[in-house]
């Protein structure tokens, strides 16, 4: 009797283990690099990014899956169903989410929550918690197993980027163009700019803590401004200054207004009275402030003052020529993370 009990308990454990292994969901793209709204917006999941891999067992027999995607807003207790689908029968195998559109695994039936989708479309990216559930059935409708995967998605992918001014470029004092990509659902954009006299260690801190020259000016729904100088009200920039600027999209949602910040751009106001201080030379001079005193050579500073305007080219690691934008990109990377700067010296 005791042995029979052990066998029964053992069998139950085995069957439970088999069921728990029948379906496994693996998120294949690191979140939050994946914009899940793209996924829930996609009809038949065509055009959706590759978000997850489903491992199914037993393989090779006929079966089908039911899947649902749920979303929970930040601070809420309950999930809302965003999308539910069932496939036609197929030979059970592992598949990626993209296979649901592009393979023999076809969608038999699907429903979606239109209100939520519209809200997501309007906001661009919906933050919160996402839950993916996949259930596996054999051809006769017998339940074989299920799995659920949860992901918090609280950090929306930046979908607003400034196109102009160009990072680290120099502009005349009264001709600083600005433009950015449109954000779906945005009703207006706000611009904030702060002037600084040298390259700041943190662009974000400079923007947050500095005295603004453009103080969150609402420019309406346009995506370009011909001259940022015209938006200045106080503390205006002067030739030779560096300026940090950011645009913010205002996106009204069903329940709240969402604000989406762009990347922060650092540019310079040209100084016509100091031709020797080309932008590059000034940038490098500013970079030197991140070096310890023992590595700061007066010769380098002198060199930049004397020859900064006679630059003939730029080279990369292996001596290959690079253009000014590539060079500025590297400087930009170092400025954003000055800890990685190792040394600056002259080789004659």
């Amino acid at each position: 009797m005791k042995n029979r009990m052990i066998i029964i308990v053992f069998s139950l454990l085995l069957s439970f283990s088999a069921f728990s292994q029948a379906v496994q969901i693996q998120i294949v793209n690191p979140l939050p690099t994946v914009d899940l709204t793209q996924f829930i917006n996609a009809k038949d999941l065509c055009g959706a990014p590759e978000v997850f891999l489903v491992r199914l067992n037993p393989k090779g027999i006929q079966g089908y899956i039911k899947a649902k995607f749920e979303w929970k807003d930040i601070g809420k207790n309950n999930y809302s169903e965003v999308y539910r689908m069932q496939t036609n029968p197929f030979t059970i195998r592992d598949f990626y989410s993209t296979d649901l559109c592009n393979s023999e695994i076809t969608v038999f039936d699907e429903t979606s929550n239109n209100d939520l989708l519209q809200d997501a479309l309007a906001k661009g990216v919906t933050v919160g918690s996402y839950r993916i559930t996949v259930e596996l059935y054999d051809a006769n409708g017998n339940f074989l197993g299920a799995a659920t995967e949860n992901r918090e998605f609280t950090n929306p992918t930046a979908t607003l980027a400034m196109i102009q001014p160009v990072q680290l470029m120099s502009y005349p004092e009264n001709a600083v163009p600005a433009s950015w990509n449109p954000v779906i659902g945005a009703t207006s954009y706000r611009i904030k700019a702060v002037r600084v006299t040298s390259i700041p260690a943190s662009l974000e801190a400079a923007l947050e803590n500095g005295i603004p020259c453009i103080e969150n000016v609402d420019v309406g729904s346009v995506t370009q401004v011909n001259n940022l100088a015209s938006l200045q009200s106080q503390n205006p920039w002067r030739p030779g200054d560096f300026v940090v600027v950011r645009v913010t999209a205002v996106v009204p949602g069903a329940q709240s207004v969402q604000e989406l910040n762009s990347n922060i751009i650092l540019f310079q106001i040209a100084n016509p009275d100091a031709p020797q201080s080309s932008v590059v030379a000034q940038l490098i001079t500013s970079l030197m402030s991140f070096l310890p005193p023992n590595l700061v050579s007066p010769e380098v500073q002198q060199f930049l003052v004397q020859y900064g305007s006679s630059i003939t080219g730029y080279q990369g690691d292996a001596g290959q020529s690079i253009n000014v934008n590539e060079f500025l990109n590297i400087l930009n990377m170092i400025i954003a993370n000055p800890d990685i700067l190792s040394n600056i010296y002259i080789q004659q």
Partner: protein
Amino acid sequence: MKKYFVNFCILSFAVFFLSGATEMPPAPAAVVTKVVNSAQYKPASGSWTTLKVGQALSTNDMVKTSGKALIVLKFTDNSVLKVRENSQVTISVTKNGKNVSKTVDIGKGTVNASVTKQDQQDFKVKSPTLVASVRGTEFLFGYDNDTTNVYLMEGKLFCEAQLGKKDTYELQEGMGCTVTSDGTIQAGEMTEKQKQEYNNSTKTNVRKVILKTPQGDLIIEYLTD
């Protein structure tokens, strides 16, 4: 009798000096595989000299870095220590039968450690306020102003405060802790800034961009992974 005594003294002196002359130098515990900018080395009994790649380090040897300098050390068990700028570190190794104990003593500054799984070995990183026992893990350990900061990227780390309350704490992956001179350990999830600090501390490859002028080249060097 007197003659025997004199002979015994001569023999004793000879043995004493001879044993000193043939004494084997301590086995190296680590070797320097990279030096960026200015770094120095001090043997257990000696003075500070310029540190060069290939220098073997034995027990009680010290190395130190100045601003923007970096040293990469490789231990005999393949553990790697990246001594960051403005740091001073003493290496010590003790053997007890098959057990080998390695201790990295941080006098000041920061080290990034990638420690291989220890088999019958003991690897400790310590500062005046903290001793961390390591069993195969990757972390950043910094000591400055009587405060030790540890950011653990992989594995587990058993931390024992050395002063005051002598708190203990087992740090889990993705956590950081601050240990002050009163012996308290404050632990928590690593912030984005701390993760960035950790990531920067792993960078040891020097790359450069060159600005060309007719009067010469200006070289800017920076660290990458």
